[in-house]
């Protein structure tokens, strides 16, 4: 399996673990106000407005999807027109087989537009996220896909505040755990004891207010 290299470049992270999405969102806003550069957040579910809070611009995938859709439209038309008008006109019921039969090509053109849009967009989505079958994941916490919401700060980046100040902000914002030097790992490296933590007990589980 290939390693995913978004996190695995031997980077060290300061990671704040939250159990409440609102607190995470607030922490992100506070840190960004103080001009702290946040590497990324990792959450088990989509947190609304988190991407805005992190200052991410809206993805351009929609433009890509539109272009794929146009390609589909063109393919559908070319397919039907070249086969049924140019190469081998089929005379059915004495009706002319020319551009005027365009209306009966519409269903196929429509379906191919949808097909190309869907597949084109999803393939671009996977490419953009560097997702492919068999790639190894890189995690900062065993429970980041369960109930832990992580806020990761790259230690090698220059920050406006010292690492200690950042950590104390994270604690004040309600992080249940803050660690200074976290390296990413993938689950195949996990030991038996780690599994105990994940499956065995409910310690550190998120509490919903």
């Amino acid at each position: 399996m290939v390693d995913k290299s978004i996190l695995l470049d031997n980077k060290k992270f300061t990671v704040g673990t939250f159990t409440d999405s609102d607190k995470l969102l607030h922490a992100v806003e506070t840190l960004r106000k103080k001009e702290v550069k946040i590497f990324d957040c990792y959450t088990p579910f989509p947190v609304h407005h988190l991407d805005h809070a992190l200052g991410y611009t809206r993805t351009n995938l929609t433009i890509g999807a539109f272009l794929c859709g146009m390609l589909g439209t063109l393919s559908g038309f070319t397919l039907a027109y070249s086969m049924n008008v140019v190469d081998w006109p089929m005379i059915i019921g004495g009706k002319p087989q020319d551009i005027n039969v365009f209306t009966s090509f519409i269903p196929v053109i429509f379906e191919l537009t949808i097909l190309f849009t869907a597949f084109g967009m999803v393939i671009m989505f996977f490419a953009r996220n560097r997702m492919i079958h068999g790639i190894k994941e890189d995690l900062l916490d065993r429970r980041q896909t369960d109930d832990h919401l992580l806020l990761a700060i790259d230690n090698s980046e220059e920050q406006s505040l010292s690492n200690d100040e950042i950590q104390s902000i994270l604690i004040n914002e309600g992080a249940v755990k803050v660690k200074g030097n976290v390296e990413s790992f993938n689950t195949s490296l996990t030991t038996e004891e780690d599994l105990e933590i994940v499956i065995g007990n409910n310690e550190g589980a998120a509490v919903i207010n």
Partner: protein
Amino acid sequence: MYTADIRKPLVLGGKTYTDVTNDICRPIENKPTNSWWLGFSIAVLLLLVLAGTLAWTVWEGIGTWNVNKSVMWGWDITNFVFWVGIGHAGTLISAVLLLFRQKWRMSINRSAEAMTIFAVFCAAIFPLFHMGRVWLGFWPLPLPNAFGSLWVNFNSPLLWDVFAISTYLSVSLVFWYLGLIPDIATIRDRATTKARKFWYGFFAMGWNGSAKAWGRYEVVALILAGISTPLVLSVHTIVSMDFATSVIPGWHTTIFPPYFVAGAIFSGFGMVLTLLLIARHVMNYENYITSEHLEAMTKVILLTGSIVGVAYITEFVIAAYSGYEYEQYAFANRMFGPYAWAYWTMMFCNLMAPQVFWSKWARTTPWFIFVISIVVNIGMWFERFVIIVTSLHRDFLPSSWVMYHATWVEVGIFLGTFGLFFTCFFLFAKFLPVINMAEVKTIIKDKE
């Protein structure tokens, strides 16, 4: 976000995020229960019936079915339209309700989408084998033709169907898989066996829930929903055009596309309810699939059932008003001819039975909803049977009038597709999360 206090919570039992993960991963991580084995065995038995009857059809020929002159479409196309229709509820729940921002869809969309995919598998069997020589099943594809100088005919609704159904199946699969990725990653990170770690790791594609990925994911899901909505409408519209573009009295009516789409959603919700009522009981998901969910779905059944009912009556009125005697006869024959029993079964099951959902008690009593959902399934099968068989068995020429009865092979194939459907569904319930964990976690604090 402001939510009114009169709304009831979408997830009951005061669940935490971990509770959601544990509850939904439990059937995947534990050994299957006895009830799972029982259901799975019955399904596999029926699947064997499917294999046997299909093999017999291929070996002996299409003459093992009773489809013949006059009634050239019988149980096969009835079953095809029945299964395709069932599929529509899945896309409606996952796509249309997403566009409408209906949060109650979140705990039922996964299984409804799975149902869509399995139903389309079942549907595809019928036209494929009805062609007679299934090994030439690739002929409807627009391939350079080495067998003659012809290309496929793009004027034919049957070809539109090939494109529509295959697009529908592949787009539904993509939509379903995309939604599964975060949940597969959750199972990967909890995996205790090497096999599970490998396979869930393989299909999770390295998902780690980064905010960037979630941002893109939400946009992609929204666009997929946006294109799936016209897609799902187009699919059953095109299926209805298989009939509507012909010149058979009883078929060539302009009301068919909206009427078929409403019928498809109606039958699909019938099947979703049948499946979910079993699943929530067997897997103890009463806190996730609450009576609020059931009530919302029964309301959709009531609405679409009534639309279908109005369509039946409209069709009849238009035939009477048309002044075209063959059209008038087709409808009189449906109501009072030799297949009147099928017509009145359809009318009872689709138009009258769902009207009980005007009562709050009926909408919130699981066993009663289950009974009605079965009635709806039966009724919608009869709708397609009535449309196909009653319109064909008496055509313009009285000397070619026949009665059509299915052979044991046709019945076996139909029962067998239930085997295929439920085998797929049981495997899905064992190996994949039946409820979308990631999405349910977002609404855990919300109200409807």
